[in-house]
């Protein structure tokens, strides 16, 4: 165990979590296997053999389904090199794992799962082992119906990620986006929400008009968005739990691109003064502060996790570029240079980078930059536009809208630019993904 991986508070988190699980003393590991604050140097080789019936139990299709779902969940993280199940000869016995055997096939981690189905009752035991150190890291027993297998596999994947990274995963999160559909009177756009993996898509607005720019409240319970009312784009706030939403911000001119400020309030781009600037309002639209003071267009506020800084788009330099406002000092710094169009900034929940869309040789690409303007990285290289980045709450993944299939669809890449998954294959354009914070209720 290298000291640089040793973090006492993470050990405490782990100790708290394993209580009540398949208890084994060796679970109390303080090692952080995957340091998600650093770029990934390599994927961890993980053996994930087929789920087996418990001794005396009959084989059941739910075993294969569970295996398939767990593979999909762990693949989504981009952190593992999943070893080919065909390479595994023996059936692993969770009670006596032959660590050296797994080590010889190249595995550093091993997951075993055994199950029993009796009537409509499913019992599933899942374990994660550190093959190199020869010990169990996680053990969980789940009981429910076979139909609960999806939920069980999300929860176990979550436990695996928490054990390996010291942080909760993104498995419980959702992504809001704008779904365009051809209606009788032309194209309409509604706000839709889906699970982190693209499953469970549902439309949450029924305005039959243009609803745009969804933004999550920090508790994941509300979504603010822009929609037209009497030919004026205004801000609506809607509970994810249901309802049709209410008008929250409605000043003359336009009311665009809401962003919840950590610690309270809503930043909105508004043009009632004749110039489009960003204002801080309460959730009823009362302005408490004018945040930017440009002469033309200032839109797309996005806050640093501590709420002390705000990135935004401004044309104050002649064309759209990303700027950062220090809310304490009032100082504004331009971040992007050398390109004629940069927009749609999204501040990473880790705080260390800002993602945005950047016009590179006439095509918009997803890029990230440090909040001090250093270390610009262009993550996508397509010939068709990639736009509207949004970070996963762990700051490891970026969802964006790409047009490579002819229509805009939502894709997920790692912060290093590796493609993880195309999330949507829906009719019409699907744009403007907004990743929820942790804790938003997952639609099963």
């Amino acid at each position, binding site marked *: 165990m290298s000291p640089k991986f040793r973090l006492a508070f993470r050990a405490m988190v782990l100790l708290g979590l394993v209580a009540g699980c398949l208890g084994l003393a060796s679970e109390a590991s303080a090692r952080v296997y995957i340091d998600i604050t650093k770029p990934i140097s390599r994927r961890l080789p993980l053996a994930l053999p087929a789920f087996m019936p418990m001794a005396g139990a009959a084989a059941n299709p739910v075993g294969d389904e569970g295996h398939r779902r767990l593979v999909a969940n762990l693949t989504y993280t981009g952190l593992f090199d999943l070893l080919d199940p065909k390479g595994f000869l023996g059936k692993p016995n969770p009670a006596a794992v032959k660590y050296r055997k797994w080590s010889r096939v190249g595995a550093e981690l091993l997951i075993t799962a055994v199950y029993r189905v009796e009537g409509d009752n499913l019992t599933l035991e899942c374990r994660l082992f550190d093959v190199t150190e020869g010990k169990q890291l996680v053990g969980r027993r789940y009981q429910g119906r076979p139909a609960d297998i999806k939920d069980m596999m999300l929860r176990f994947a979550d436990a695996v990620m928490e054990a390996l990274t010291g942080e909760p995963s993104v498995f419980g999160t959702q992504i809001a986006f704008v779904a365009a559909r051809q209606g009788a009177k032309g194209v309409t*756009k509604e706000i839709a929400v889906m699970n982190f993996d693209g499953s469970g898509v549902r439309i949450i607005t029924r305005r039959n008009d243009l609803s745009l720019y969804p933004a999550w409240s920090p508790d994941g319970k509300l979504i603010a968005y822009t929609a037209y009312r009497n030919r*004026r784009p205004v801000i609506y706030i809607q509970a994810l739990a249901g309802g049709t939403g209410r008008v929250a911000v409605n000043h003359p001119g336009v009311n665009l*691109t809401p962003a919840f400020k950590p610690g309270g309030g809503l930043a909105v781009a508004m043009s009632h003064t004749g110039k489009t600037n960003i204002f801080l309002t309460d959730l009823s639209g009362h302005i408490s502060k004018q945040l930017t003071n440009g002469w*033309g*267009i200032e839109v797309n506020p996005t806050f640093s996790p501590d709420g002390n800084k705000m990135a935004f*788009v401004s044309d104050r330099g002649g064309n759209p570029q990303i700027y950062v406002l220090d809310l304490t000092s009032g100082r504004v710094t331009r971040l992007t240079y050398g390109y004629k*169009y940069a927009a749609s900034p999204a501040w990473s929940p880790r705080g260390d980078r800002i993602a945005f869309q950047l016009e590179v040789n006439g095509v918009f690409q997803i890029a990230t930059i440090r909040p001090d303007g250093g270390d610009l990285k262009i993550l996508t290289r397509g010939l068709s536009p990639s736009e509207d980045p949004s970070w996963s709450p762990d700051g490891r993944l970026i969802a964006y809208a790409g047009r490579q299939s002819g229509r805009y669809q939502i894709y997920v890449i790692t912060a290093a630019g590796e493609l993880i998954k195309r999330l949507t294959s829906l009719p019409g354009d699907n744009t403007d993904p907004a990743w929820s914070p942790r804790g938003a209720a997952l639609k099963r």
Partner: protein
Amino acid sequence: MKRYLVPALIMVLSLLLLAGLGCGKKEVPGPGSMSPQERARLEEARRLREARLAEQQARGSEARQREVFVNQDVHFEYDRYDLTAEARQVLNEKARYMQSHPDLKIIIEGHCDERGSSAYNLALGEKRAKACAAYLQAMGIAANRMETVSYGEERPLVQGHTEEAYAANRRGHFVIK
């Protein structure tokens, strides 16, 4: 444009009919045998005919003017909302039409091409609509006759990812209330 075709046809047909009736009357009585009442009646018919013709012509040109007012867009450069010389020419015509139609109230829609950020474009579309309105106001059109709305890149006139489509979609569009 099709909706003007039917009134135009009716107009042409009724003119032909009127002309035909007039000719038929003229042939029968000679100038010498015409009574003063007859002469007055004919004179009245001619006057009515001419008035109707003038009105029809005016209405035809009125329909054309209205059509131009609604269909001729004010165009913009990429990522710009200042008015080009050509845009100002089009707006001068809009101003003339609004001056000769003092009851007319309009909505100016600002539109953008699909490139760039949709949010930035929605703000840009408003600047374009407002630039048109400000110019018309400077030409003496009362502000309360004009309303603006931005649709950004959300309501393109022309579909497609070509320069031609982009140019056609960067526009101020006029709608009569």
